């Protein structure tokens, strides 16, 4: 039974980009779909409603300058259908550090220069668009941390926003940050009127979470304040993107206990971003054990513990696994790395947590995860072709 071509167009627009590329070989008409703007827009919009299927894994930022490496792996069920061309991955691996990814766009920083050189790219369509850095935001040190995040508009698929937080008030104990926002479609930087005041602690800007129209960052938990300080305990600070107010969110009491030493705490989106009960989760890794809390009530900072699990109970391949990095993907899947392997652990049923081995990796300790979904999203009208 033949299916009209405009219907095949509909079905194909729900496929991840790698599968679409494969089916370009079906027949001539189908091979033209991915060149049409309406198709690319439809596919981009459709995939916004689906889960991320892959993740980038990279070594710690300071190591990456010497050990250039960007790996991309697909989640177990997606190995055949989602991914990025090898030659593009090799090109990225040799020249960039991936900073963020959203709806198929990847924010990169070239690591061959000392100055800050940023661009947005789509590894599937091989297009890239440079992000100009004004003099005031330029930094000339490759090792310096840049506090940067990417958000892709869900309503305007031609637009994206890059947030860059620049520290000011260096002499004070509680530095403030100026928030600069680059709008992709307009191609211009704007500065937010109110500064971000995250208190006295160092903040983990590269683990920022977008939620409730605000950017949330968790502080570190090292021991460098006395008990009398307001910032003795680690906390989350949110920065409202509409009015620029900074608000402190408390962490659960059990999380704060024993957190000053050998403890790694990070926040992630919890639940599907499109659902009404999406929230934030807190993952604490300490002493080879994970504890996860969900934020139940935003206004009162009340958390509920989801589960607690020892790494050895997960029965991994290695004998004495040491967790080197972790993330929560799609609001419900724990993905973590040991020195050599990457595993996923389903969190929807605490009685039977399904652990799967995903792949091996060569990114050493302190691995960084960035989720990715292969779409045909546009990089903007001034996009160029990537040289690979």
């Amino acid at each position, binding site marked *: *039974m*033949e*299916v009209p071509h405009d*219907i*095949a167009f*509909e*079905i*194909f*627009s*729900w*496929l*991840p980009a*790698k*599968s679409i*590329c*494969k*089916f*370009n*070989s*079906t*027949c*001539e*008409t*189908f*091979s033209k779909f991915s060149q049409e703007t309406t198709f690319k827009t439809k596919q981009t919009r*459709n995939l916004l409603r689906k889960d991320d299927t892959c993740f980038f894994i990279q070594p710690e930022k300071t190591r990456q300058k010497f050990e250039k490496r960007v790996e991309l792996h697909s989640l177990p069920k997606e*190995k*055949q*259908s989602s*991914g990025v*061309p*090898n030659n593009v991955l090799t090109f990225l691996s040799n020249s960039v550090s991936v900073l963020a990814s959203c709806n198929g766009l990847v924010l990169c920083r070239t690591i061959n220069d000392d100055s800050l050189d940023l661009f947005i790219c789509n590894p599937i369509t091989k297009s890239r668009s440079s992000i100009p850095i004004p003099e005031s935001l330029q930094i000339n040190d490759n090792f310096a941390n840049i506090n940067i995040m990417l958000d892709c508009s869900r309503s305007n698929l031609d637009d994206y926003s890059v947030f860059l937080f620049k520290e000011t008030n260096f002499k004070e104990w509680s530095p403030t940050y100026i928030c600069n926002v680059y709008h992709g479609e307009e191609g211009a930087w704007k500065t937010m009127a109110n500064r971000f005041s995250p208190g006295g602690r160092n903040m983990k800007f590269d683990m920022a979470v977008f939620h409730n129209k605000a950017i949330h960052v968790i502080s570190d938990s090292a021991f460098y304040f006395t008990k009398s300080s307001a910032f003795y305990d680690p906390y989350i600070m949110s920065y409202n993107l509409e009015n620029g107010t900074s608000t402190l969110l408390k962490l659960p009491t059990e999380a704060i206990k024993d957190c000053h030493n050998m403890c790694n705490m990070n926040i992630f989106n919890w639940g599907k971003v499109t659902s009404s009960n999406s929230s934030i989760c807190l993952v604490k890794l300490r002493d080879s054990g994970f504890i996860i809390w969900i934020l139940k009530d935003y206004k009162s900072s009340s958390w509920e513990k989801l589960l607690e699990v020892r790494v050895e109970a997960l029965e991994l391949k290695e004998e004495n696994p040491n967790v080197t990095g972790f993330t929560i993907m799609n609001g419900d899947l724990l993905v973590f790395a040991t020195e050599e392997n990457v595993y996923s652990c389903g969190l929807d049923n605490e009685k039977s947590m399904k652990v799967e081995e995903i792949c091996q990796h060569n990114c050493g300790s302190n691995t960084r995860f960035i989720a990715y979904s292969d779409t045909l999203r546009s990089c903007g009208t001034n996009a160029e072709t990537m040289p690979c």
Partner: protein
Amino acid sequence: MAQEASSSTSSKTISLKTGDGEIFEIEASAAKQMKTVQRLIDDLGDDITIPLHNVFSKELPKIIEYYKKDITGEITKDFEAEFVKDLNDDEVKVLFLAANYLDANKLFEFLSQNIADRLESKSVEYVRKYFGVENDFTPEEESKLREERAWSFRGIKEDE
């Protein structure tokens, strides 16, 4: 033919006749979700049996089942998963084409996604057969495509 002023549509049922002559009843509010049916009702009135030449008795009950759940707001991810669980790829295709004919948007979109999920890791040949298309590339065009897309062919599932 005089048309009665429709009172509460929730209790009103419409009769549908499939291409193979069977008659099924649906609620008027469910019929509203199928634009083709609604158009026929607007033209022919809601008291006569609406003929659906391109939909058959195998698939119409399933479609009615879907929209019964839709009008009570009970369509969940679990329901949708159950709904297609026992259907093979060809059965889903028939259902999908019927939803297209009936202009039943919600079901059409759900089935598009479901078919895409099923086809994701299948082979190019399987997809050709599925859509009833021929390989109309020249051998040179095709090998050029395969070279360019070699990465996307990795890991193809055995066709069932």
